[in-house]
């Protein structure tokens, strides 16, 4: 077994009396695509937030490449090499598409610019590079957010519902892009409600329900799992 990129160990997070995440453990190996599914309110986004430092966990540990990252600030987590997108789009609306990408880099501007243009070309948005991101369509904003994450060249990419609201053609491009990232050796963890996407893309799927991990395995087995069916459809 390869050394894990990310290890989540008995992570818990409560909001008042609600246990949003209750003792979840995950182990992600490099160069693989993982899915995180579960009914609404099962704790998927909270788990993302705890990993990226936006929420402070109550208990448990998060290790990235063997290093404790729980307790770090979000920008520190991002700089270590974890990139994420959001369920609700969070581009910088009054920055141009190009500026949205440039702003997250630290190195020489010329190199950043070249990389940003390359990424915009990759998602076929180079013609709109000077448009305010807020003026782009929903799907286009989603793509800007996706390539913005890649500007820092993260080793782990967390995608929160990448397929939601994206049309089929665009979606296929996006899924190809995710596979290419995997082929470059990056690790991807995605939250997704579209089961076709999850089943077609992910090698391992984790299922959350009421903040607990109730199943883990290849998509085919997960689909047949009694507890998963029960969580989604009830008894």
């Amino acid at each position, binding site marked *: 077994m390869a050394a894990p990129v990310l290890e989540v160990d008995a992570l818990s997070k409560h909001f008042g009396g609600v246990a949003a995440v209750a003792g979840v453990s995950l182990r992600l190996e490099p160069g693989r695509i993982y899915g995180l599914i579960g009914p609404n309110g099962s704790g998927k986004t909270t788990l993302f937030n705890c990993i990226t430092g936006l929420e402070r966990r109550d208990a448990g540990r998060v290790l990235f490449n063997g290093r404790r990252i729980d307790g770090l600030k979000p920008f520190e987590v991002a700089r270590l090499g974890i990139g994420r997108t959001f369920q609700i789009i969070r581009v*910088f609306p009054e920055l141009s598409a190009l500026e949205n990408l440039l702003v997250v880099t630290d190195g020489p501007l010329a190199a950043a610019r070249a990389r940003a243009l390359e990424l915009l070309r990759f998602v076929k948005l180079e013609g709109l590079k000077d448009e305010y991101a807020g003026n782009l369509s929903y799907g286009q904003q989603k793509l800007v957010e996706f390539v913005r994450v890649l500007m*820092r060249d993260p080793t782990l990419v967390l995608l929160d519902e990448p397929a939601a609201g994206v049309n089929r053609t665009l979606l296929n491009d996006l899924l190809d892009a995710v596979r290419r990232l995997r082929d470059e050796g990056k690790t991807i963890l995605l939250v997704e409600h579209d089961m076709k996407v999850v089943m077609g893309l992910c090698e391992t799927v984790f299922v959350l329900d009421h903040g607990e991990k109730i199943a883990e395995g290849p998509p085919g087995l997960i689909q047949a799992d009694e507890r998963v069916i029960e969580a989604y459809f009830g008894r």
Partner: protein
Amino acid sequence: MTLAPRAFLTGLAVLAAALALYPIVGTGYGVRAMLQLFMWIALAGSWNLISGLTGYVSFGHVAFFGAGAYAGAILIAKAGWPWLPAALAGGAAACVLALVIGYPCLRLKGPYFAIAMLGLNEVLRALTSYFEGLTGGGSGLSLPTLHATVPIYYAMALAAAGVTLLTYLIITSRFGLRLMTIREDEVAAEAMGIDTARHKLYAFLLSAAGPGVVGALAARDQGYIEPISVFPLATTITMIVMALFGGKGTVWGPVLGAIVLFVSQEIVWARFPYVHQLLFGAIIAAVVLLMPRGVLGLLQTKYRLPRTL
């Protein structure tokens, strides 16, 4: 596109030369009015650096003006400093104040930050009234007589130009874009690896320097300061309205706002002292309702003009 910037720069150079020569031909009133206009440009531009770019609306920015005024006046009156180093010390004092209060206050979001800044200003006013030995308390602090209106005119002009140039440099840089991401979506900025706390503090320090310097210059120019004259809420509101009217987050917006509002105040409203406040309030309401981005912000989005405007 090389023609337009060149014409623009030529225009700026001609304007600068005209302003440099103005004290030779201008009346005493004219020079003093221009001096005050420069002061307003520096104040509105400085407010724009923190509030226009990061979206953290400071409702107590006059605190830095007052801190600079008192620091400068005390150095001049009690330590015998010349006014120019005293003015720079006023800027430094305002930056130190910004550092001390910025660290806790910039963690507050939205209206809480605005209210904290408002409170800071009231605290400073109370403190200056209390420490009579140093500040003269409520009876104020008189500076030795000095006729230096023309040199102070130049110093104010430099302060206004300095703040505007600084704004230009920031807005056209990646640092400036990072400040804007805080305004646009602070959570996303943080998740993308931007150290938002540090960037806010930098912007806050930069926005305090200008008011500190012009506060000390204004103190020297007026020759007498007291707590109510250097910490008035009205000054904060005026700089906010100027920046909003011209276009917050732009380079030339605060300059335009300061010119339009100051000139109209001097020329038109001085004849109608009673409706002056009313008109000011009406302008605030109209700008917020009809042109939330201000004149230049509106032009920028409508005609896709560059950020350097």
